[in-house]
């Protein structure tokens, strides 16, 4: 697995440092939401790298942890709102998994802001842009990821 390329300067004090954020977006809602943001020309920060998944239920916690291990500064996982999942309950099963992962990582000391979750529908281009901006701000405040990163 290749390490996500780091910016030249990694120091958080450096004004030009930009976080890299990996976003796992479900095909049916959040990915379409991102698309809508695009075609509607709604601005959002270019820090995210999108990975399209069939459903938020496809996201194995291992994916999230590996992303942090190989150089992402933050992760966003986004799926359909409860009740809207294309596979009926993929997101509700995933919700339990995500809750445990998030709380467990916090327990071992990984900063809470590195892991972000949202429900964004295909009609919520605005919300997509807002969530991405918030996540980027949060991760910028934390600075480059160091915990769990494989050196």
């Amino acid at each position, binding site marked *: 697995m290749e390490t996500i390329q780091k910016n030249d300067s990694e120091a958080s004090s450096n004004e030009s440092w930009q976080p890299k954020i990996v976003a796992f977006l479900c095909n049916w809602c959040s990915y379409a939401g991102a698309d809508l943001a695009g075609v509607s020309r709604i601005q959002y920060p270019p820090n995210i790298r999108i990975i399209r998944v069939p459903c938020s239920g496809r996201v194995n916690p291992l994916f999230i942890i590996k992303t942090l291990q190989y150089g992402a500064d933050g992760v966003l996982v986004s799926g359909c709102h409860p009740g809207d999942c294309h596979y009926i309950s993929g997101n509700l099963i995933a*919700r339990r998994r995500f809750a445990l992962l998030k709380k467990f990582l916090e327990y071992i000391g990984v900063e809470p802001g590195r892991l972000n979750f949202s429900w964004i529908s295909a009609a919520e281009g605005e919300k997509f842009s807002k969530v991405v901006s*918030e996540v980027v701000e949060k991760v910028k405040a934390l600075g480059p990821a160091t915990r769990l990163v494989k050196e």
Partner: protein
Amino acid sequence: MTEAEQSMRKTARKLLEEKKVAMIIGYEKGTLPLRTTPCFISDTKEVDRLVWNATCANNLAKYIIDSKGKVGIIAKGCDARSIVTCIVEKQIDRENVFIIGLPCAGIIDRKKIETELDEQEILEAKINDDHIILKGENFERQFAVKSIIDDSCLSCKYRNPPIYDVLVGEKVPDSMGDDKFISASRNESKSDEERWELFTKELNKCIRCYACKNVCPLCYCNECFVDQNMPTWLGKTDNPSDTMVYHIIRILHTAGRCVDCGTCSRACPMGINLRALTQKMVKLVKELYGFDAGLSIEDVPPLATFKQDDPQEFIQ
């Protein structure tokens, strides 16, 4: 020989004689003092190898999955709960297992003794009902069993097996009094930095021998994620980050299944306090989904289901 041990052997012999089971899974004396080892008895002549005492530390549910036909199994509270988990996860049929339940007086923690003895080698151990006598080259010491009980037993709330086909011996009080989540709670008040430091320091001792997963009855996967190589999920290195990831994922895989038996912690040759991690997962599952693993074979695994109103304050 204690009374419980005697009646356990009697029960085992009877089951084999009457051909009710093809094999008994139990404990026998280990090669070193204070050790027992799992054993598999199918011949009535061998029944006297079975022992039952405060050093029966392994979780025997580990061995039930691979056994063929109907087997009898010696089960403390925690073993019985792990057997329930195996039944719930459809790894074994309830009809194929005969549970010989034993109320548990607690397992001793060898590490506590080793500390007390300043690591001097124990050459001989004699275990009586409530105390043990240890002999070494220049010492003879006596310990009350109570004073060297493993932490996982002190905080256990299910010392009597919640499920059994026959119960050997008298029931004991369900708990010894310690807070159930004491190991996890201890760390919760610390800051992010302190906890990160604590866990990296602890896990840096890990040599990735995988004893913790090899003794755990939950780790029955034909191919563990640590061994998969298409793709290779986990680097086969001693890099601290890989080690962390191993532990995080293993513990996530125990969610809603771990019975906090402490077997993984006791198996660790490096003395890593794994319970501070595994117990947190048990606690989270209890707090978020109100679930305690291994109490009923009617259970639905909490990660295979959901409720409409599950907590989601962390989702934007």
